[in-house]
């Protein structure tokens, strides 16, 4: 299992434990941490987050990302991670 430390996303700061089989977006939703999103396919960029610690496996996407940015709908943790909002 991996630990996802949520650092103030939509007002929530908490730790979730996940198997790493689903996207971070889905994990957050299942733990009631609501996140902006739209396409769920890596096209729109609504679900962008900052990866503060750890590594994720990221699927290809259409959105240009800066260093340390990930799309919640396109990434899965492969270590314990810490994530936060971009702004």
């Amino acid at each position, binding site marked *: 299992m991996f630990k996802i430390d949520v650092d103030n996303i939509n007002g929530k700061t908490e730790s979730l434990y996940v198997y790493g089989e689903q996207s971070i977006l889905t994990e957050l939703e299942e733990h009631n941490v*609501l996140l902006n999103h739209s*396409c769920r396919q890596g096209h729109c960029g609504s679900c962008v987050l900052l990866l503060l610690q750890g590594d994720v496996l990221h*699927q290809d996407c*259409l959105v240009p990302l800066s260093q340390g940015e990930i799309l919640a709908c396109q990434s899965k943790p492969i270590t314990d991670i810490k994530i936060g909002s971009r702004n």
Partner: protein
Amino acid sequence: MSYSIFSKKVVNTMAQPMFFGDAVNVARFDKQKFEMFEKLTEKQLSFFWRPEEIDVSKDKMDFAKLLPNEKHIFLSNLQYQILLDSVQGRSPNIAFLPIVSLPELENWIETWSFSETIHSRSYTHIIRAIVNEPGAVFDDIMKTEQIIERAESVSKHYDELIKCSQAYLLHGEGTHDLNGDKTTIDLKCLKRKLYLTIMSVNILEAVRFYVSFACSFAFAERKVMEGNAKIIKMIARDEALHLTGTQHMINLIRDGKDDPEMTAIAAECESEVINMFKEACEQEKNWAEYLFRDGSMIGLNAEILKQYLEYVTNIRMNAIGLKPLFEERSNPLPWINHWLDSDNVQVAPQETEITSYLVSAIDNTLDDSDADFGDFKLD
């Protein structure tokens, strides 16, 4: 001015707005003002699929066993989708191509509209497989008041824009006699019609499809009509791309990255747009009532579908920078994401492998030379 399919004027497309600038002449993609549209095109091409590749033979047996109220839900949804894709299979081309000014956007519009024609063909594939008389299902579309009513709402902005932009391209600005109707055409009011049309298309693809997506996936959650659900999943995947296209146009306009006059129009139209979302959501709720008039289906009822509609409407408004209309809530149909998420989409045979790569958190103790680790390809 009059429209030419290949204007001889030399233009710098990098300095053109998305629409109502100079017409595109050379289809060139060596330099692009908005690269996102080419990325959308490439993605759409990689998604190419054919309905015939999907086996729907088991659906015939499943369909025969459905309860009458479930048959009503299933067929009505297909009929509604047929209407929506009939509109989308032609109208982006007819409405937007004559007025587009960027080659990469022109290319996206054509690719987008083409993919809708695949959706249309897939409905015939499904209906032929499950009923003995496909003709009756199609003939009923034009006889169903609830569908025709909504045909009006999804086509009225398109029709207005097409009528006025054709007059503009033929005669320019001024007061023209359009079939006995004195109509004043000026560029600003045309741009307004364009903005509202883009919005109405966004609502069509981003909200209106989702009741019937939910029903198709709900059947398949019970392991019935799974061939249909596979097709609808491909359609939903395409639609997620299309709706990102209109969202992108809207956001470029709203963020002041395109035509400043369009940006001003977007601000002026804000309350009208909010009303459009409200109205569409209301209409779709009525549709849910109509679907379930003879009874619900396992896993879905009109109430929960209406909550889902509010949830989807909120998300779509958010994505274009509008304040959501409804109370923030979690997804009332969480299982639907298994069908909508990219990881679970079966890749068509011709789709190349999905590439993934490792992303690491920025470590401040590393210097810039370590930065390229972020592009490390795993497969």
